[in-house]
C-alpha cells in the first residue's frame, strides 16, 4: 500500500446521535488504515468529559456552564426527539437490540484503534473546561494543528 491516508473530523455538535455518526466514521476509517483525528470543539468537547465530579477551580460562569453541559458522552441528548431525556433512553434500548455500540463504547474502540482525539483549547477556555475533567490520553491543540492534519487529509468532515 502507498502512503497512509488521513481522515479528519471536526466534532462541533454535542448531540449524542451526531457524535455517534462521527465516531462510527472514525472507527471505520481506522479500519481502512487511515490515520484518524477527531478535533473536538464547542459542544463536541462534552463527549470527552469524564462522568464523575471533578473539583477544579472555576469562576461562577464556568461553574454554571459545567453544570448545564452533559458530563460525558453517555449523558448527551439527541438532536431530534430528545423528549427531555426520554429520547436517549429509547435510542440506547434500540442500540442494544440491534447489537450496535453505544457512544461510550465507540469512543473506547476509537482509542483502541489509535484514533487521535484532540480537544480544542480555545473553546475549552470559553466553556470553562479543564484538562482534569476530560478523558486521559487525549491531545490538546488549536486550529493550526487541525489544519496541518486536514490539509493532507483525504476525508474531512464537520459534524
Amino acid at each position, binding site marked *: *500500500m502507498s502512503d497512509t491516508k488521513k481522515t479528519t473530523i471536526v466534532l462541533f455538535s454535542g448531540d449524542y446521535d451526531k457524535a455517534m455518526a462521527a465516531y462510527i466514521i472514525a472507527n471505520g476509517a481506522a479500519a*481502512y488504515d487511515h490515520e484518524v483525528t477527531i478535533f473536538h470543539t464547542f459542544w463536541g468537547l462534552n463527549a470527552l468529559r469524564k462522568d464523575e465530579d471533578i473539583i477544579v477551580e472555576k469562576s461562577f460562569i464556568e461553574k454554571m456552564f459545567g453544570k448545564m453541559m452533559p458530563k460525558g458522552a453517555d449523558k448527551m441528548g439527541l438532536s431530534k426527539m430528545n423528549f427531555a431525556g426520554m429520547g436517549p433512553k429509547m435510542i440506547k434500548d434500540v442500540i442494544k437490540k440491534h447489537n450496535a455500540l453505544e457512544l461510550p463504547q465507540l469512543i473506547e474502540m476509537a482509542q483502541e484503534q489509535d484514533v487521535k482525539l484532540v480537544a480544542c483549547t480555545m473553546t475549552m477556555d470559553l466553556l470553562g473546561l479543564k484538562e482534569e475533567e476530560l478523558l486521559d490520553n487525549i491531545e490538546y491543540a488549536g486550529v493550526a494543528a487541525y489544519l496541518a492534519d486536514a490539509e493532507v487529509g483525504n476525508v474531512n468532515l464537520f459534524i
Partner: protein
Amino acid sequence: MNIDKVLNAKGLACPMPIVKTKKAIDGLQSGQILQVLTTDKGAKSDLTAWAASTGHEILDTQEENGVLTFYIKKGEK
C-alpha cells in the same frame, strides 16, 4: 480452499464487522485466507469496498439464510 482463520461477526452492527475484520486480517500473513461470517446487510458493500481500498482480495462470497460469508485473501503489505 485453505482457511487460515474464521471470524464470526454474526449479529454485530456497523462498524463492528469491518473493525473486527481489520483486526483479524492484521494477524495473518499475506496470502493467507480469512473467512468472515456476518449478518449485517451493509457488509456486502462494506467489505467489498474495504478490501479493494486496503489491497486485499475477496475470493468468494456466499449468502445462506441471511448469513453472508466472505473469503478474503490478505494482500501484500
